[in-house]
């Protein structure tokens, strides 16, 4: 079982927008892989294709060419049951995207009943455990509009975890949070990493990248420019573009 969890092979994606004269090459022949239990942090300037790459892994975005496999299953193949695959790939969004008409508890319970076909009783037990784990057991019956950003993101993480995913994808999970709540959510993510979860994390939190990542990928203009272990990457970036980028944000 040494094969990687995620394999990304020569993936290309171009956006054509009527409002823009030039097509945008969001992914330019990207090849990489993520091992089981590995935590990969993806960084890069705005518009470099980080979100597009992440969203291609669970096919929220369609790619033009290349292949992506998750645990050996080809994401874009016609015969792949994409809903079953997505259930095994958790995704956490910048803006949480909790179901607005459901309580925190119901946000976690509903997908379990509908997708994983669990009984309500079992789903609620799992949801209670997860609310405990993400640190807000007292918020079970609150609607999203009554929760702070940090609390909403904790519920969103719990909702993903309830599906018992093999992989978790985080797309700027803390970018929309108040500074004082960022730390708690990052800590939760570090905990997941320590439990052995395979994670692909797009973030601007360099502290998190340095501490929690096994590997850092730097992207620019749709391509992976550089990758390394965090210490070497941050202390000794090789490419000019990575050096520029780090100088600007640090």
């Amino acid at each position, binding site marked *: 079982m040494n094969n990687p969890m995620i394999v990304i092979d020569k993936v290309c994606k171009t956006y054509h927008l009527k409002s823009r004269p030039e097509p945008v090459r969001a992914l330019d022949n990207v090849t990489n892989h993520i091992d089981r239990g590995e935590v990969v942090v993806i960084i890069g300037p705005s518009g470099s294709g980080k979100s597009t790459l992440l969203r291609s892994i669970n096919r929220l975005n369609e790619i033009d060419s290349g292949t992506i496999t998750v645990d050996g299953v080809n994401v874009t193949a016609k015969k792949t049951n994409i*809903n079953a695959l997505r259930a095994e790939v*958790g995704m956490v969004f910048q803006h949480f995207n909790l179901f607005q008409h459901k309580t925190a508890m119901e946000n976690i319970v509903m997908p379990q009943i509908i*997708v994983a076909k669990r009984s309500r009783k079992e789903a609620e037990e799992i949801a209670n455990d997860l609310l405990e784990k993400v640190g807000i057991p007292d918020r079970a019956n609150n609607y999203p509009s009554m929760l702070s950003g940090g609390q909403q993101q904790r519920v969103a993480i719990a909702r993903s975890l309830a599906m018992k995913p093999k992989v978790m994808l985080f797309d700027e999970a803390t970018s929309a949070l108040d500074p004082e709540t960022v730390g708690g959510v990052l800590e939760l993510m570090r905990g997941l990493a320590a439990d052995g979860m395979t994670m692909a994390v797009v973030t601007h939190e360099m502290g998190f990248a340095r501490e929690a990542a096994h590997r850092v990928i730097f992207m620019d203009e749709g391509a992976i420019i550089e990758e390394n272990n965090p210490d070497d990457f941050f202390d000794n970036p090789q490419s000019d573009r990575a050096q520029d980028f780090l100088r600007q944000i640090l």
Partner: protein
Amino acid sequence: MEMIADKLSIVQSLWPFLIKGLWVTFQISMISILFGSLIGFTLGIGKTLGNVVLEKCINAYLHILRGSPYLVQLYIIYFVLPSLGIAWLSFDSYTAAIVSLSLYTSSYVTEIVASAIFAVPNGQSEAARSVGMSKTQTYRNVIIPQALKLTIPPMASVYVIVIKSTAVLSVIGIAELTRQGEVAIMRMPGDIMFIYLLIAFFYFLYCYPVLRFSKWAEGRFGQLGNDLH
């Protein structure tokens, strides 16, 4: 004093007819609203599925219904269709009234439902899809429940439009409220003004609660930026 007694006696003698007329108005509008809403919900959802051909067909249907006066639609369904000689298209006046009003209602409801669905943020369906829900499950459990809330206020104002449109049905001889009033005026031509006021009052009795509900619902469920008016 004498005048008031006079008016009271008019009210007294017309009351049973107006109540009967209001009852017919109520029945026809309620049945049409029910069927019209069912058709409208189906087409409204259809419009959002991202199927270009389906969307074009629905838009054509809407253009035809929204682009012609209801009275003309009623004439076509009641007078013109039977002349085609197709048995099941020869409606009696009640059926013609309900069919035409249902279609008319559906044209409004379709737009309301479609814009409510489009108003649900994209992130909601992305979140649903990313936990593994199918498109159908996402509509059923996430998008439609949230969109329904948004439809409540505009829907109530459409219902008022439909209720008032039933007045047109007097031209095909349906004994609804306006028709009952016109019959009364033939009997008492001297009181035409008073009788029309009385009819207006009866419509008001029916529409006002619906309008109040619409206003209340707007505060409760929020407003939809639709292109109704």
